[in-house]
C-alpha cells in the first residue's frame, strides 16, 4: 500500500488510535463509493437478466430490412426506437436516444464544473453549474417521459398477437413489438434508471439550495457537491451501459 510509508513517519500511537486515513477520502465520500458499488450490482443484475432473457428467445433471422414485429422472436431494438418528437412517420433509428445520451453526458460535465467551483470556494460558480446540471436532469426526464409515452401508445400498424388479434403499444403483460418480456424489461430497466435520475435531480436541488442560501459556505467546504456529483456521474455511467445493451446491441 502506498500510504504505509506516509503513516510510518507518524507516531505509532496515531497508527492504531484512528489517527490516519489510509484511503485519503472522507467518510461520506467513501460511503457514497460503496453505495455506488452496490448500486452497480443492482443495475448489472437487471442488464444481465436482460441478456439471459434475450438469449432465451429466438433472434430474428433474415435481413433487417424485412423485419416486422412478431411475438415469435426478439425485436431488433433500432426498429422499435426510431421515432423523434415532431417528426411523425419519419424513421430515425436511435436518434432520439442519442440526444438523450448527450443531454445526460453534458449534465455530467456541468456537474464536474460545479465540483471544481466548489473546491475553489466559488459560490457563484457552484450555483451556476448546479443549476445547469438540474436543468439537464429535468430535460432528460422529459425526454424519457416522451419515450415511454410513445412506447406505451405504440404505432399505427401495431403488432399481431399469437391468437391473431392486433394490439397497439405496450403494457407489462403484452406488447406489439415482441415477446411480453421485452416491454417488461424496458419498463424495469429504463424505469429504475429514470428513478435514479429523478432522485439525483432532487439531491442536486437540495445541494443547490444549500449553496444558494450560503449554508455550505458557512460549513467551510463544498464537499456535499462532490458527493452528489459522484452519484450524478454514476447515473450517467449507468445510462452509457443501458444505451449499449438495450438500444445498440
Amino acid at each position, binding site marked *: 500500500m502506498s500510504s504505509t510509508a506516509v503513516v510510518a513517519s507518524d507516531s505509532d500511537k496515531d497508527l492504531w488510535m484512528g489517527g490516519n486515513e489510509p484511503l485519503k477520502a472522507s467518510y461520506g465520500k*467513501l460511503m457514497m463509493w460503496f453505495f455506488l458499488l452496490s448500486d452497480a450490482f443492482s443495475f448489472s443484475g437487471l442488464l444481465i437478466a436482460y441478456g439471459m432473457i434475450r438469449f432465451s428467445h429466438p433472434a430474428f433471422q433474415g435481413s433487417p430490412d424485412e423485419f416486422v414485429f412478431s411475438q415469435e422472436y426478439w425485436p431488433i431494438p433500432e426498429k422499435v426506437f426510431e421515432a423523434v418528437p415532431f417528426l411523425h412517420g419519419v424513421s430515425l433509428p436511435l436518434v432520439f436516444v442519442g440526444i438523450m445520451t448527450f443531454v445526460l453526458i453534458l449534465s*455530467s460535465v456541468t456537474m464536474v464544473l460545479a465540483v471544481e467551483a466548489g*473546491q475553489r470556494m*466559488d459560490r457563484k460558480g457552484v450555483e451556476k453549474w448546479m443549476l445547469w446540471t438540474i436543468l439537464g436532469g429535468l430535460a432528460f426526464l422529459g425526454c424519457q417521459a416522451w419515450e415511454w409515452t410513445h412506447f406505451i401508445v405504440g404505432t399505427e400498424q401495431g403488432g399481431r398477437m399469437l391468437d391473431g388479434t392486433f394490439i397497439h403499444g405496450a403494457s407489462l403483460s403484452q406488447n406489439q413489438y415482441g415477446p411480453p418480456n421485452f416491454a417488461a424489461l424496458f419498463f424495469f430497466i429504463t424505469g429504475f434508471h429514470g428513478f435514479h435520475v429523478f432522485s439525483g435531480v432532487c439531491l442536486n436541488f437540495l445541494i443547490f439550495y444549500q449553496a444558494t442560501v450560503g449554508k455550505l459556505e458557512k460549513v467551510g467546504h463544498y464537499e456535499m457537491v462532490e458527493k452528489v456529483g459522484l452519484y450524478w456521474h454514476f447515473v450517467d455511467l449507468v445510462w452509457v451501459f443501458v444505451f449499449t445493451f438495450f438500444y445498440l446491441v
Partner: protein
Amino acid sequence: MSAEHHEESTVVVQPVDKAKVRLFMKVTLILFVITMIEFAIAFTVDAGILRTAVFIALTIVKAFYIVSEFMHLGHEVKTLIWSILIPLIFLVWLIIALIYQGGQVLLVR
C-alpha cells in the same frame, strides 16, 4: 480549507483551474466522438458477434473516462481504486452463468 477568512462573508475565491477545465473538455470530446463512432457502426455494419464486441469495448472505454476523470477515481489512492474495482469480478461469473443458461432455455423452449 480557507483558514484566511476572518468573518463568514469574506471567503477567498481561488481562480479557475484552467488545466482541470481543459481536461474535462477533452474527456467530453472523447465521449462525444466515441458515441458518434458507435452510431456510425450501428448504421453501416451488419449485426454480429464482432459488432457487439466492438460496442462493448467502446462502452468500457467510455465508462473508464467517466469513472476515472469525472468521478476522479483515477486520482485516488490505489487501495480505494482496487476496493471499488475488484468486487466487480463477481459480475464475470454472473454474465457467463446467465448467458449460458439463456441459451439452454432457448433449446428446451
